[in-house]
């Protein structure tokens, strides 16, 4: 038997009005790995995430999750199967409390989410678990705070805690360290390392330092297509990658 793959795409294509954003992408995500998806801006990374979670419908191609074809499932159903994504812009519920943010995720499995005749107090029994999750991402002291008041780094940590509440088998993180200062970047990177213990993570990441530290496997996208794949040493030594990706990255940092 070859390696065990959680997720596989076969010849995934997404066209927008004659423009191909994702071009024949066949990905294999090995179970237990942190798999990084890198590439210049506009390469199609976020679009791949949108296809995997059905926020966009592929023009053609298949998506297999644990060997089952999930190409025709809807977003919410894919999430319920265990593939949970974050968004490039931080995805929190700003006017709910920090605790409520996590509780919303825990609540789903309770099966009472349509019960409009019950008091929300029935959700209090989830508080301990919610606080536990908040503590695991270093937000234990913020449970009662309003989410809008959190710093950017804390919001991203809250997002991870909320995602973890669903105990996803596969976590998709879209640029989790984007727009952060150095200290926050390291905190979030350590956090990702920590939560990767019993699960698989596919992440889009621009920060190559983070990628080199975390990723077991890297896929480089360019203009919607896979340029190359491999571990950090292999990929970073590839002259095409240096030209296509690192060149752009250097320019970006200089700008």
């Amino acid at each position, binding site marked *: 038997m070859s390696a065990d793959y959680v997720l596989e795409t076969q010849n995934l294509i997404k066209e927008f009005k004659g423009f191909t954003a994702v071009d024949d992408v066949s990905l294999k995500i090995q179970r237990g790995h942190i798999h990084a998806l890198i590439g210049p801006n506009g390469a199609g990374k976020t679009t791949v995430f949108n296809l995997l979670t059905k926020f966009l419908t592929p023009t053609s191609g298949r998506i297999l999750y644990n060997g089952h074809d999930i190409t025709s499932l809807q*977003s919410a159903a894919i999430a*319920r199967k265990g593939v*949970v994504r974050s968004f490039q812009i931080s995805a929190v519920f700003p006017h709910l409390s920090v605790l409520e943010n996590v509780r919303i995720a825990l609540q789903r499995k309770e099966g009472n989410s*349509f*019960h409009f*005749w019950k008091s*929300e107090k*029935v959700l209090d029994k989830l508080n301990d678990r919610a606080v536990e999750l908040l503590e695991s991402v270093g937000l234990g002291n913020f449970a009662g705070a309003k989410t809008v008041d959190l710093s950017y780094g804390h919001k991203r940590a809250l997002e991870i805690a909320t995602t973890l509440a669903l105990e996803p088998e596969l976590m998709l993180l879209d640029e989790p360290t984007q727009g952060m200062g150095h200290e926050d970047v390291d905190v979030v990177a350590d956090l990702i390392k920590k939560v990767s213990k019993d699960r698989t993570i596919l992440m889009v990441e621009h920060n190559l330092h983070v990628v080199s530290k975390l990723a077991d496997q890297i896929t480089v996208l360019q203009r919607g297509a896979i340029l190359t794949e491999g571990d950090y040493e292999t990929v970073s030594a590839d002259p095409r990658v240096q030209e296509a990706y690192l060149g752009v990255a250097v320019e970006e940092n200089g700008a």
Partner: protein
Amino acid sequence: MKISKLSIVLLGVALVAPFVMYPVLLMKILCFALFASAFNLLLGFVGLLSFGHAIFLGTGGYVTGYLVMNSGLSPLLGILAGTAAAAALGAVYGKLSVKREGIYFAMVTLALAQLMFFVFLQAPFTGGENGLQGIPRGFLFGFIDLSDNLNMYYFVLAIFLFGFWVINRTIHSPFGQVLKAIRENEPRATSLGYNVNDYKWAAFVISAALSGLAGSTKTLVFQLASLTDVHWHMSGEVVLMTLVGGMGTIFGPLVGAAAIVGLQNFLSGGELGNYVHIIMGLIFIVCVLAFRSGIVGEIQKIVKRNFS
């Protein structure tokens, strides 16, 4: 805690009010307060602006009026039937509209409501332009004479309290938590595994049913069901009431309904009667430009600033 003390005071006021003010005006305010609260459940807590909500108010009214008049249904059963009819219409219209976003949702709800408006205009059993007149109020439980305004008032108050309780419970329920999450960040709610359209639909049906309850009750109060209640003007009025009072607040729609109904009543008696629509329009503009959070919303801000 503050809210519940306030509720007790308000309840006390509501119980003695008919001895101080004209009961029919008070009943009108209660019916519109319930209607606006039901509308606010969608606008304020799910973020859906329905621009055809009068159709549920009016459907409740017509069905109740027709059955009480022609089938001899008791007032309570008549109201139940009207509410059920509005809920059923809401179930269909909700299915057709909740998939749309923003302005498209508003347009679809308006179009569907207009469709039903023409049905009520043309159908033989609605009395066309005249509407249904002289609908008997009847006897509650067979022995409480509702033609007595005071009896009717307490009946209406009880219905209002029930409807208002349902809305509050919905907002503060596990279901309400999901609604708030959808309002705050719909894609995130989806990515947590919630089928957001199913939740929006359920909220739509609850809102339609309670709007129907308000309309059914109003029909018995005025002994009249007419096209006014299904007209798009009425759909606009409930938007106005909710915005003036404060959308997304519990008491906003009550204050808004009391303010608008009170003002209309005041104006229609005086020389300004011809300018009602212009004055309402001006209030709308002022609200949207200067008092985004409405009367209750502004008060909450002041309280927060000074006491916390």
